[in-house]
């Protein structure tokens, strides 16, 4: 128990002191994960909705693959991105390895399948209700996808949050492609890993508490906005 007490006091001490280095790490974590979520949503939402609506050969296979990719091990994603972005890899000339951009790419790859697969599932339920009506109206494919995403927006907020949660909590991939460089690619999770390896268990757990609070804050904000929107729009 004393470990936990120490962890919480470490967390509070950290928050109260609000060191600039902590702010930097928290800020970088949020930036990277939010951009990754944005990119993954731009790809995953239309992809998921399209998979829910259109019937084509190989669709079932694609759905199964997408569902399986939800369990993609972060370390594997990290390795693949590392090999691609490495100077000796196909995109080596871009010089992106060990930069925040590399971390965004890894997180985007990691969470796009999650967002796409969950979107497909919830959109399909809505599509069952709308299909005949849209067919009768002659709604074009693009309009159909947009309308389904918009009408499903309240449940998609949860989908996007699931993606954000996975992105911000992930350590394996960003460690490999970011390199955990101080002031450049050090984020919450890699700091926790580093402090653990230094035997600073209380500090590591304290950082974990802060990460949890952040996740809680983001989720609470999204929930409140969502509830308000549901009340307004029904």
């Amino acid at each position, binding site marked *: 128990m004393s470990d936990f007490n120490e962890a919480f006091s470490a967390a509070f001490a950290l928050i109260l002191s609000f060191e600039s280095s902590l702010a930097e790490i928290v800020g*970088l974590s*949020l*930036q*990277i994960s*939010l*951009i990754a*979520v*944005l990119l993954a949503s731009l790809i995953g939402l239309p992809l998921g909705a399209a998979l829910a609506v259109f019937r084509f050969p190989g669709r079932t296979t694609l759905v199964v693959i997408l569902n399986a990719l939800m369990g993609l091990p972060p370390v594997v994603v990290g390795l693949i991105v590392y090999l691609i972005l*490495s*100077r*000796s*890899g196909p995109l*080596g*000339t871009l*010089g992106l*390895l*060990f*930069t*925040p*951009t590399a971390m965004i790419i890894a997180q985007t790859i990691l969470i796009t399948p999650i967002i796409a697969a969950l979107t497909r599932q919830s959109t399909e339920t809505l599509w069952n209700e709308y299909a005949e009506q849209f067919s009768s109206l002659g709604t074009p494919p693009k309009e159909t996808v947009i309308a389904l995403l918009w009408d499903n*927006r309240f449940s998609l*907020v949860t989908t*996007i949050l699931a993606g954000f949660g996975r992105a911000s909590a992930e350590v394996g991939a960003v460690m490999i492609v970011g*390199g*955990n*460089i*101080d002031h*450049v690619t050090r984020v919450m999770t890699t700091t926790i890993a*580093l402090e*653990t*390896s*230094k*035997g*600073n*268990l209380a500090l590591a757990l304290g950082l974990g508490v802060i990460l949890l609070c952040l996740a809680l804050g983001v989720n609470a904000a999204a929930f409140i*906005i*969502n509830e308000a*929107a549901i009340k307004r729009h029904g």
Partner: protein
Amino acid sequence: MKLAAKFFLISLIAGVTLTGNVSAAERFIVVASTTSTVNSGLFDYLLPKFTSKHGLQIRVVGVGTGQAIRVARRGDADVLFVHHKKSELAFVRAGFGVGRSDVMFNDFVIVGPGKGKGNDPAKVGQTESVISAYKAIANSKSIFTSRGDDSGTHKKSLSIWQTALKMAPSSNGVKWYRETGSGMGATLNIASSMNAYTLTDRATWENFKNKGELKILFEHDPLLQNQYGIIKVNPARHKHVKSKEANTFINWILSTEGQAAINNYRLNTKQVFFANAKK
């Protein structure tokens, strides 16, 4: 529409800020180094001194020696700063690096249970050499953890086992020998919770906070000296290597000023790194 717009806007602002950060970053080089130098806090002490003088940012990627060498081989670093001379020379011979200079040394120590009932079951503290210390651990079948990765520390440990037992023990052969497959810190955490012996570099040990009942039980054997070397990644092999900047850093760390800075670094009031670059 409002919610999506808000979300988009926030992400956009974040994105702009981030890319701003990246492009605003000054000149930098990437140094592939080991966890010992990062975890001990040495770089935190050294680098600001260098950067304020030369305006060059040093981005340190701290991994095991073996992995650091692979990172450098692929051209993902400009400078390699590790501690396993044999591998370093092989790296240069294969044409991946240019020149190799001694920078400093620290030493390895054997830590193990040093308090309470389980106090030093192998009596490592009473041995005269690291070889006999290892033999004592093997004979008493006391639990010994090793990193089991490609690190300089693990390679050092294996070479000692080789001399002591004429063979390297393996995890699946004997119950007392455990390879953790992870870094020095993680291995120390495991040793601490299992009251096991392990070989660690002194710097990492000094900065390690979760010692539990572990203590240094054996130290100061010539075999345990741990030499660090620095190598520039070969620009002929990887064209993007920032040769000039890499030279600036290497020259500084080998200079009187850089060497003095290393010797001045104190961890818990103790000197753990000893500069020994050839003049």
